[in-house]
């Protein structure tokens, strides 16, 4: 009975109800998007960092991995020290550099990684085999396209360019052993990977025995944070970052988006609340005579409250359902905009749908709708019956 009366009240003004549902849907979509934005970045980065199976990253002290061109000297000694730490099951050294491929139309530059095949976590092999032997290199699709080569071809790469003499230094002809996809590079960024020793040798004295980063795989039974803190305390030249601390630093840099998400999500909730309150209040105001008659013939206050609250709830539920669909569409649109950030790894999503936070956000909007209906419901239940009937009869 309550449901029928609430439905009749909403259907009496179809255009208004449709607009109210649309308004709540836009608010719900915004709330959902902002929840996806605030939780998505963290989860996306966590997934990216954990994808290679390494829990600790060791780099030059004071710098984020590959945030500049800083490297650590004495690489071999550092690797021995790290391998000796209990609980570390794999040590994967990485040296970063810019390589130049002299081409007829000008040199093509690429970001290059010197790694040890078999223990690296930076790329996924897509064709051919890893660059295991000295003189081999693997390239990603943008680099292969830029130098117009295929797997099996040879390519001359150089580590340096002397602008004074306009000559390349550290040049070497390498065989393309495979085609790979780099986990941490942007979709259009050119990349190459070659054996660590080869890249160090090509770099000459400047890169001899130097490393940009060492990734560590830790025994599942070991305490990752204890190992990280131990390295940080014992080795003054390097900083150790666990996935948790790396996430903290990444979050610090992206805190703007998290805070923007909080502010816009809160505003959307307030807008949804105001919309439902306004609609239900006006609806009650229009029906004061009807409500007074119901009260006069013995309908209880509780019944009146339930009917009015139900109206607000129906508006919120319908709006939230529409908002879920709308939110997913707008999230994809907004994500496509942020995905164009220069240098952003291809696999990072700013908006990530996770059912529990998304449902919690929409549930919060529904609760807001319930609260919004409560105010006019109380007003309807406490109407002075006789005075209202007299006023309405005169009108």
């Amino acid at each position, binding site marked *: 009975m309550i449901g029928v009366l609430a439905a009749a009240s909403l259907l009496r*003004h179809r*255009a*208004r109800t449709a*607009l*109210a549902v*649309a*308004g709540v849907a*836009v*608010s719900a*979509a*915004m709330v959902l998007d902002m929840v996806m934005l605030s939780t998505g970045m963290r989860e996306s980065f966590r997934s990216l960092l954990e994808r290679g199976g390494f829990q600790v990253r060791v780099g*030059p*002290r*004071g*710098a984020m991995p590959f945030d*500049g*061109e*800083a490297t650590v000297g004495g690489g071999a000694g550092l690797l021995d020290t790290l391998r000796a730490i209990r609980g570390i099951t794999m040590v994967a050294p990485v040296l970063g550099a810019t390589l130049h491929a002299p081409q007829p139309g000008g040199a093509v530059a690429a970001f290059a990684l010197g790694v040890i095949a078999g223990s690296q976590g930076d790329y996924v092999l897509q064709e051919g085999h890893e660059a295991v032997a000295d003189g081999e290199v693997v390239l990603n699709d943008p680099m292969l396209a830029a130098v117009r080569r295929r797997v099996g071809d040879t390519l001359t790469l150089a580590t340096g360019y*002397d*602008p*004074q*003499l*306009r000559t390349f230094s550290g040049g070497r002809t390498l065989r393309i052993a495979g085609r790979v996809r780099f986990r941490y590079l942007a979709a259009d960024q050119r990349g190459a990977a070659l054996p660590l020793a080869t890249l160090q040798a090509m770099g000459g004295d400047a890169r001899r025995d130097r490393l940009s980063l060492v990734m560590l795989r830790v025994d599942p039974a070991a305490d990752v944070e204890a190992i990280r803190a131990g390295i940080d305390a014992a080795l*003054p*030249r390097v900083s150790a970052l666990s996935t948790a601390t790396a996430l903290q630093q990444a979050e*610090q*840099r*992206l*805190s*703007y988006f998290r*805070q923007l998400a909080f*502010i*816009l999500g809160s505003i*959307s909730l307030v*807008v949804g609340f*105001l*919309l439902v309150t*306004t*609609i239900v209040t*006006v609806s009650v*105001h*229009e029906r004061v005579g009807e409500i007074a008659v119901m009260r006069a013939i013995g309908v209880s206050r509780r019944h009146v409250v339930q009917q009015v609250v139900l109206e607000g709830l129906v508006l919120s539920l319908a709006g939230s359902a529409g908002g879920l669909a709308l939110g997913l569409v*707008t999230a994809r*649109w*907004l994500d496509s*905009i*942020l995905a*164009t*950030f*220069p240098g952003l790894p291809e696999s990072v999503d700013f908006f990530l749908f996770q059912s529990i936070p998304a449902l919690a956000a929409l549930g919060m909007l529904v609760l807001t709708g319930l609260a919004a209906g409560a105010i006019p419901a109380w007003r309807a239940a406490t109407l002075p019956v006789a005075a209202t009937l007299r006023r309405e009869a005169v*009108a």
Partner: protein
Amino acid sequence: MPRSPIRSLSFRARSVALPALSHALLAVLPARAQVAPPAAPPPARHATIALDARLATDAGIRLGDLVVVAAAPGIPGDTLRVAAFVRRGADPSEVARAEYRVRMHLADLQRVLGYGDRVDRFAIATRDSAATTRAIAGINAAAFGFRAHRSRDIAIETSRTFAVISRFHKAIGVITIGASAIFLLCIMLMKVEERRRDVAALRLVGLSAASVVRAVVIEAALVSVIGSGAGVVLGAVASRLVNAWYQQLYRTPLTFSLVTPGIVGFAVALSVVLGLAAGVLAARRLVRTPPLALLGR
């Protein structure tokens, strides 16, 4: 008790890495917390350094203090006297970066880094745009191993990140405008429907449908203008709060939210247009209904 010129700083025994004028990293150690001695005994007059004001605050460094600057932690460096503190500029690219920056005399930095007589870039001031064009052409034609770029082109290249953020903000703005339009239409519809009986009475005494539409539209315009005024005040207050919050959070003078006459004009115009459109729609719906039906008969 007189303060020692070389301050003992116990807050952090470890060094702080600093991206300097070049892309190299420097380590600044409070003089007594250093882990390695300076390469040579400090001269009577120390060279000077300007420190990031945030570093000075965090490390408790004061003007006149001596600091040891090295190219990497644990290696000998130079002892310099802190001559100035600098606030970082309003550069969006630095906002979310926690690293400190220092300013050194070029020769001092070249010596500390072992950079020789090298520089990363020159900045050249010109009289006007035509002179800039001539200078760029001249340098690129004659110089060996250099490439000159117009500052504007570099700014465009380095501001790609902010172009993305700007597009993101615009997209959020489009969604917000959609929500506002629906809200406004809803409110206008309800306001007009509240007046059903009044409109019916006016129509029955001979007022034309056009007059009713005009009255409703004028009312909608007034509501929009008043609402816009309140919105401008609310927006200005919110903008100040946003700036105050983010500026203290990131310790930057950067303006995050800017309310300009153009933005106010756009917001008011949009709101009035939306209000008028909502008023026209609602009024047309009302005048199409027969007056007696509006009275419920």
